Structure formats: C-alpha cells, structure tokens
C-alpha cells in the first residue's frame, strides 16, 4: 500500500534501525548533490574546470563534489556552487513523509534547473497576482452578499462584529541566520 508518491509501507518498514536510516539519508543527500551538480554542469556544457572557475574553486574540488562518497561538503561551498549556476540553495529538516516525497525522484529528468530569469519570475508573479486578485474579488463579493442578507433579516447587524475582530499576531519566523547556524552545527 502506498502512503505517498514513490514509497510504500514495506519501503518505510526498512528504516526501523536508526543507524541504517541515518546512513540512508546521508547517502541520498550526498548522491543527490553529486548527481545534481553533474547534471547542471552537463546541461550548460561546462567542464569541471569551467564550473570551478565560476565558483572560485579548483577543478579537484568540483570533482569531489560530484563524488557521492565524498562526505565533507560545507555549506559555504554549496552556496558558492549554487551561485555559479545562478540558483538558490534550500536546506531544511523536514518531516519524514515530506523528505521521502522530496527525494523520491533522482532521475536525470528531475535534475534540470533554470538559472535566475527576471522576466520569467515577473510573469509568474503577475500571473499569481491576477489569480489572487480574482480570489479576493470573489471573496469580497461573497462577504458583501452575506452582509446584505443578514441585514435584510434582522436590520440590526452593524459594527458589533468588527469589535470582535482580533488582529492576529504575526507568526514568529526562523531567521536565515538561525537556519544557517543550525545547518552548520549539523
């Protein structure tokens, strides 16, 4: 029986041993990074030397990054390599089910990435704004209809509801610096 995309009850049952599961996670991440760097470099037709030049690293560092058995990656190096591809970096410690989903695809097809493209991002953002604007308009219309209906029924509803509206406190955020410190400590 499948729980999520690409993993089953029998699959997750194999991870009852903590040491085994730690080894599995470490290898999936290292392998993913190695395959990703190789795939991004191949897409751009860059040699290891060329990527090294762009990331400010010698070729042998890039060669090690593409070795799934190399275990001494630093966050700083990953940031520099990501920047060389003009890509952001994302580090997280998610729930297990999210992690299984996120790493469920290591195929070459899943490792293509586009660098920063302001036009594309602007188009996406404007498309999203239109969508959100429509939702807001629909919500506003529905709310207005509801009020009209209620007023017609009792003629009494007015400001009282507003007095009960509580301003929600902004949720506390984990800062980027705290996240980086946590990742560094790990």
């Amino acid at each position: 029986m499948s729980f999520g995309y690409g993993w089953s009850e029998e699959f997750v049952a194999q991870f009852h041993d903590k040491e085994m599961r730690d080894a599995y996670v470490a290898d999936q991440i290292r392998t993913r990074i190695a395959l990703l760097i190789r795939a991004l470099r191949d897409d751009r037709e860059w040699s290891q030397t060329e990527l090294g030049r762009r990331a400010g690293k010698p070729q042998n560092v890039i060669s090690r990054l593409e070795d799934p058995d190399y275990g001494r990656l630093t966050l700083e190096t990953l940031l520099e390599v990501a920047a060389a591809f003009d890509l952001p970096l994302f580090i997280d410690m998610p729930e297990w089910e999210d992690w299984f989903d996120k790493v469920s695809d290591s195929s070459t097809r899943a490792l293509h990435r586009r660098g920063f493209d302001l036009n594309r991002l602007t188009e996406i953002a404007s498309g999203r704004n239109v969508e959100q604007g429509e939702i807001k308009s629909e919500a506003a219309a529905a709310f207005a209809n509801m009020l009209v209906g209620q007023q017609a029924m009792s003629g009494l509803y007015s400001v009282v509801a507003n007095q009960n509206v509580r301003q929600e406190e902004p949720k506390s955020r984990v800062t980027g610096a705290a996240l980086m410190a946590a990742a560094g400590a790990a």
Partner: protein
Amino acid sequence: MPVVSGFRCYVSPDGIDEIRAWYDRQPAKVRGKFLSRLRTLSQLQVNDWKLLLFRWLHDDCVPLGEIRFEVQNVQHRPLGFRAGENLFTITFCAREKSNRFVPSNACRQALGKMDEIKKDFRRSNVLWLRLE
C-alpha cells in the same frame, strides 16, 4: 518517480539468496548505503548508470558491472550482469583494495554464478529489498 530498473540476486544450489545473506551480515551503515544506491540506480535506465555510482568492467571481468560505494574506508563492489534491458542481477559482493578485488578471484566467482543463472533462471530471486 517510479522504479525503472530492477534487480535480481544470485541463489545458491541449496536455495540461499547469497546477496541477502551478505546484506544481513553487514553493519547498519553498509545496509543503509547499499539500499540508497540501489534506490538511486533503480530510478535510472541501466544505460544511464555511470561513474561514480557504477562501472562496467573490462578484460577478464566482461560482461560484469560493479556497483560502487564506500563505507568507512572500505570500498564495496557488488558485482553483477545485465539480465535484460533494465534488469541487473547481482551475483557476488566483493570489496576493492589498492585497485584489486578482494577476494582476488571475485570476477571469476561472479562470472561462474552468472553462468549458473543463465542455465537455470530459478537460481536468482527478485531483490527482496523494497525500493519504493
């Protein structure tokens, strides 16, 4: 991503899945890494298997290939052969030290087991590990 490549494992004349027996003898770190590598390879077409995860062997070891991974300075080399377009059968789990297999006759053993399977398909099992 669905599994696109599958694995089978050598079974001895007395019915023991020798790859599973090897796996069961390994420490947790080796078991975790072995499962991880098979999972990654299973998501690629066998034609796309390449260094540094996998290597096809040469000379006396043809047509064998080796799955490559290291745990605590031990280079593990499960050996096997391509048994179909996207099917790989593991026949023997060797190690590598100073560019030589341990045991030194690993290729000969793996090839002999391959011949046994080719004569009798029942001398291999579907991989018991779940990859998805």
